[in-house]
């Protein structure tokens, strides 16, 4: 295929896809649209984790809390008269700042110490959502004022918001991954001890990865607030952390597409377990079945498919099993 034809085909595909998403509110039923929006939001947060855990190789367990920071701060600011886009941007930047703060020890800590520190930080944020009642209304919960735009209903607006953001994030991060910065992040993961002699400051790039991932977690949280319309602290606790981890590792931690595929997976599993068939067959599964499924999925993926679903085509093509995918250079 000549380049002209290929780019023409890609261009046409993108246009067709764009048109499909643009007119989706007209033909999709409301519930499916709600689920797809949810998937896009998780995918935005997931791509941030791909940058941090996949590319840079840092364990981070604080992102459920950072997602909550984006949701709560945006709702608070927008509730106090800020225009929503400004509120969302400010909150995501605040989340990025917090992410860099929790990333500071990353320069000195390795592996599981970082896991403990970030887990504690995420719990600290959860405690803050519970305790700072003047800002968050604590366990009572906080209603989110819906965004308004003339001539368009809120669910459609949230749909466009999530889809446009996801597309922008995907394009930006794909470019970032191929740039010098992306290669430096992967160098920090693969050859950290050599980065100093190459003139790469490992610490600076770790902090950058923490900030980027926290920013995207915050941004996703801001949109999530619009989708869910009512915030309680428990939305941003350990169960969400497990969902993020399952999403990331089922999809494949090294690839941006993994974040999207993982998001589809977790929402599909959740819907399946809440579906009428399962709830009538095994009523007990409705409550804790989801956590059980996600816990077992994490165990199985780590044990049998460390590169996630997106590593399957490559694994099937090459007969020899590849070395551990976590350290594989793309």
């Amino acid at each position, binding site marked *: 295929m000549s380049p002209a034809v290929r780019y023409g085909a890609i261009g046409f595909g993108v246009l067709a896809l764009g048109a499909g998403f643009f007119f989706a509110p007209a033909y999709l039923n409301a519930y499916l649209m709600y689920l797809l929006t949810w998937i896009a939001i998780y995918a935005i947060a997931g791509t941030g984790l791909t940058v941090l855990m996949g590319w840079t190789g840092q364990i981070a367990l604080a992102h459920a809390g950072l997602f909550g920071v984006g949701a709560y701060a945006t709702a608070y600011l927008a509730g106090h008269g800020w225009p929503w886009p400004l509120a969302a941007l400010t909150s995501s930047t605040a989340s990025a700042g917090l992410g860099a703060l929790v990333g500071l*020890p990353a320069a000195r800590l390795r592996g599981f110490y970082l896991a403990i520190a970030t887990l504690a930080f995420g719990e600290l944020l959860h405690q803050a959502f519970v305790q700072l009642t003047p800002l968050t209304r604590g366990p009572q919960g906080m209603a989110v004022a819906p965004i308004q735009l003339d001539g368009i209903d809120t669910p459609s607006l949230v749909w466009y918001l999530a889809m446009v953001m996801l597309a922008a994030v995907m394009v930006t991060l794909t470019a970032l991954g191929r740039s010098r910065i992306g290669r430096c992040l992967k160098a920090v993961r693969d050859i950290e001890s050599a980065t100093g002699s190459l003139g790469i400051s490992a610490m600076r790039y770790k902090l950058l990865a923490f900030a980027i991932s926290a920013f995207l977690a915050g941004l996703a949280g801001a949109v999530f607030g619009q989708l869910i319309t009512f915030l309680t602290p428990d939305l941003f606790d350990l169960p969400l952390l497990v969902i993020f981890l399952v999403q990331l590792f089922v999809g494949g931690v090294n690839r941006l597409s993994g974040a999207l595929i993982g998001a589809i997976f977790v929402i599909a599993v959740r819907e399946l377990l809440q579906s009428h068939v399962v709830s009538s067959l095994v009523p007990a599964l409705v409550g804790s079945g*989801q956590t*059980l499924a996600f816990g077992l999925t994490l165990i199985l993926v780590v*044990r049998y498919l460390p590169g996630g679903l997106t590593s399957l085509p490559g694994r099937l093509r090459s007969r020899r099993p590849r070395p551990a995918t976590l350290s594989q250079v793309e």
Partner: protein
Amino acid sequence: MAQQVISGLAAGSSYALLALGLVVTMKTTSVPNFAMGAMGLLPVYVIRSLWSQLHLPYGLAILAGIVVAFGMGWVVERLTIRHLIGLSHFTTVLMTIGIWFALNSIVGLLWGYEPQPLPGLVSGSFDLGQVVVTNAQLMTLAVGLAIAGWLIVFFRTTWGVRMRAVAEDPLVPRLLGVRVATISGLSWAIASGIAAIAVLLSAQASVLNPQSGDDLIISGFVAATAGGFSSIGGAVIGGLALGVLENLAGAYLSGAAASTVALLGIMVILLVRPTGLLGPGTGREV
């Protein structure tokens, strides 16, 4: 003040015990076990069921529960951890997080999410003038110190030395005829038993719910981190200190302050001295 210190020491004793469980799996299989709290929780639910539904004497139920804990630790190690030997902490952290949530939801599935009362182990107290010390507090502290002492001795026995050797290098001990798989399974069994005792002591004369293990795991990590994940004495002192600090913060600042002491403490320790306050001076490559 003295009253707060006494209750702090008793609470800290459970933290220290959970930290000891963490130190044992770290010392032998080099796995930071995020599932430790959940592994201690399930056997305690078994104990409660044996006592309240099968009407076993409480002491006998506890013994049976600890046997269950040993078995569960062995099985978990056999099914999951053994296949990950030699892989990075990145992998084992994720695996143990998976185990943590799987076990927690199994507890929720089998026993529900309603808090269930757990009887006290001993009753009575005595008055020392200004402070009142309950027998339960004394017993908790004594059990914690006894298990720590037993572990210190144990790591000097043949089996203990084998465990430490396996942690250092899984290959060479195998060449010397040490059954690495047995050692690794045994350490998870012991750690799981200790965790069950930790959860049992912290929930005694109080209620048990599926979150009981989660509440302990962060505190356990703080205590283990204080000892650099290798020092038994460090884990005990770290646990007791954390318990006392939490109680003082709860009494003199606020209830909310008490629950953030552990979370802030761990970040401060890791920022100031990442190898642990009482751990080895040189960091172990992790």
